[in-house]
């Protein structure tokens, strides 16, 4: 027993000395890492844990009077307000938005990248030009879109329509056109994906495409058999990022709130409205956790079925 205690003490002392040495040696490194760690715990870990706890309360922003699973029961109830008929619609709308906008953005940004990949004079200027909209803050862009897609005849897009002889549209002011209008605003920022595609295209060894060319492979054959497969890691990355971003889309709220007839009542918008307008923070946290589970599930499924992604040997 004594010997065991003695061993334990000496082991503890050994660990303590090595820990001190470790810290002494790399203290500068840890010091620089500290702000990031603090930020991560204060602004990510703590809110996540707190929101999970709040999801099981009726927290309204200032006080809690009830604890239980009532928020989840409410979400999956048949209630007209805040029940599944409404929450499910918001989830459905977010999924619909993802299903349409992700492939569209991926394809268009890829086509754009193929054009801008060519090394011709002044190409860097065009790359910059297409990337610039990405750096405009979402709120500022929202206000710009409101002017562009104004339902008035004086709206910029309606003036273009009038010039082209196309009838005036209500854009965000009509439930029929608001989702399509909102999706079209996403095209403005395809420069973000485009930059990733350009990086992927740059990583393709020219010798591979040259060899294929010598073997008589045409442009489209090389594109579909060599270029696109070699770009799949970036495609996968863009896909995952796209799913996470589109399922959490919220920019529309700054422009038109939940939209005419709730046509833009995405789940992230609903979470905000439930928490900050209806003062049901607990319910909003429950909805947020459902969204998190959905995003996590989508991401896991994507990884599970990612055998189509081609990694070269060194990447493996």
């Amino acid at each position, binding site marked *: 027993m004594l010997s065991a205690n003695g061993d334990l003490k000496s082991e503890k002392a050994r660990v303590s000395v090595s820990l001190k040495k470790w810290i002494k040696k790399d203290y500068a490194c840890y010091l620089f890492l500290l702000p990031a760690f603090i930020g991560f715990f204060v602004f990510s870990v703590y809110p996540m844990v707190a929101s999970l706890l709040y999801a099981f309360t009726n927290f309204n922003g200032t006080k809690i009077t009830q604890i239980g699973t009532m928020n*989840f029961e409410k979400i999956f109830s048949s209630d007209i307000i805040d029940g599944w008929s409404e929450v499910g619609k918001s989830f459905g709308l977010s999924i619909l938005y993802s299903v349409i906008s992700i492939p569209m953005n991926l394809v268009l940004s890829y086509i754009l990248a193929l054009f801008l990949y060519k090394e011709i004079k002044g190409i860097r200027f065009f790359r910059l030009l297409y990337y610039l909209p990405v750096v405009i803050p979402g709120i500022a862009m929202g206000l710009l879109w409101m002017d562009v897609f104004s339902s008035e005849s004086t709206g910029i897009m309606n003036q273009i329509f009038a010039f082209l002889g196309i009838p005036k549209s209500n854009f965000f002011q009509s439930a029929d056109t608001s989702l399509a209008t909102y999706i079209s605003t996403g095209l403005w920022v395809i420069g973000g994906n485009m930059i990733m595609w350009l990086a992927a295209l740059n990583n393709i060894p020219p010798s591979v495409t040259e060899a294929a060319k010598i073997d008589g492979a045409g442009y489209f054959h090389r594109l579909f058999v060599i270029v696109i497969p070699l770009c799949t890691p970036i495609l996968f990355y863009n896909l995952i990022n796209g799913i996470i971003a589109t399922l959490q889309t919220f920019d529309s709220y700054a422009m038109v709130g939940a939209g005419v007839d709730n046509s833009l009542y995405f789940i992230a918008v609903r979470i905000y409205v439930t928490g900050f307008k209806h003062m049901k923070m607990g319910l909003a946290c429950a909805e947020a956790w459902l969204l998190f589970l959905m995003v996590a599930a989508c991401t896991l499924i994507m990884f599970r079925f990612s055998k189509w992604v081609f990694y070269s040997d060194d990447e493996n």
Partner: protein
Amino acid sequence: MKKLISILLAVMLCAGVFAGCSVDIGNDGEGTGDFSGEIDFNAGTDYTDTIKVWVTNNDSELKLMEAFVNAFNQVYPNITVEYQGIDSLTDQLIFNSGLESMCDVFWVTPEYISRYQEYGLIAPLSPIVEADQGFDLENLNEDCVRSCSSDGVLYVMPRDYNQVVMYYNVDMFDAAGVAYPSSEEAMTQDEFVEMLAALKEGLLTSDETNSYGVKYSEGFTNSMDASILWDSLSWPVVKSFGGMIFDDEGNYLDENGNMLFDSEGTYEAMLFAHDLVANQYMGNPGTWSTKDGAQFLLETAPVYLHCRAILSSLTTATSAYHGLSDIGVAPCPDFGDSDTYYVGSGATGYSMYSESEHKTAAWLFLKFIVSERAQEEASKTGNHVPVIESLITDENAEWRKYTTSAFGEQYSNEPFIYRREECFTHVRDFMQYIDASYQSTVFERLQNCYTDCITNVKSTDAAGIETEIKAFISKYAKEMKNYIEAD
């Protein structure tokens, strides 16, 4: 992967164990407490303390608070009042609740009473008023006190009295060759629409220019600058036409189970708003709602519907506007064709934070706000009609003495209190019956109804317009019902 799925399943199983469980851990404490025991009613003018007061962050609010604090410190020199203009006041009140940084007194508009009750932020003042032997509310305007109360309990100390009036640009009326509206009698709806039509016609053919050097005929935007979505217009207009959301007994359904909102009265109100915009008498709320007052100040619209609280901003030159040189005031028109006269009216005021540790000083300050001295000082800012009945009617009260070079022969103080005994209309008329969580959402449905009836009616023939407007009203009535009936 398997590990992750196992963890997820385990979490879901744990959650399943607790499914259906819920525990009440306290009452909902909707501000029903009696805090009079925390107040020293014998505190004299030598009482020493410091209180923090938060108001919404705009110039006129800060100016008013400055007037109140200066007057207060002349009576209570040892009470320091630290006042501050706060952006997003409601959010800040919530975030700071329970913290040392929280204020003791804060500015409140009555439509927020239920929300603040729900948050437990607001101390009921009625028990304090009852316990304070030397104070009563009898000399205050009854309607203001009522609108600052919930279920008969006062939560906000009313600060002023406001009702919507019709401001007009005398020069533009002259340029259009249109007679000035009377300051003693409200126009009927027909007279009002006729005036708007004449203004439009007159200004579009006028050769005169405004103070910005723009010809009236070229700068003309609308005959009237008014945001129909503003609660002081949207609700009174519906009510004037006989529309309602709740009746006086708190019912929202008629004997057939239909929403009271889905009525001929609401239709008449929506049609009225639709026609005003269609004829260019009023701006489209979708376009102009965030630019309220800009048309009037830029002298592109000759009429403006608003209240006394913004008076000085109409006459004072800023970097953006010249300020009007000759302003006229008339009572708000009598909308609808019934005998009733409903005008957006109300009071804003100040409330005590329920957990304030300086309740005695806070109460002394709130009491002082409704004293004659404080009311007279506030009136000197120009944007204030007193909440004390005797001052409202007193010919020599300070609020009547306020004047600027922009007040010509057509300026009158009477429209600010015109038929005030009967016109008082406030969104709390219906909000008081709705769960605090959904009050603003129901009001939004009213706003959306206006927007749709003005913007999204496609028909041009009378029958088609009627069908579309009625369809919008039915749609929003149904949505209102869902929220009214929600848990």
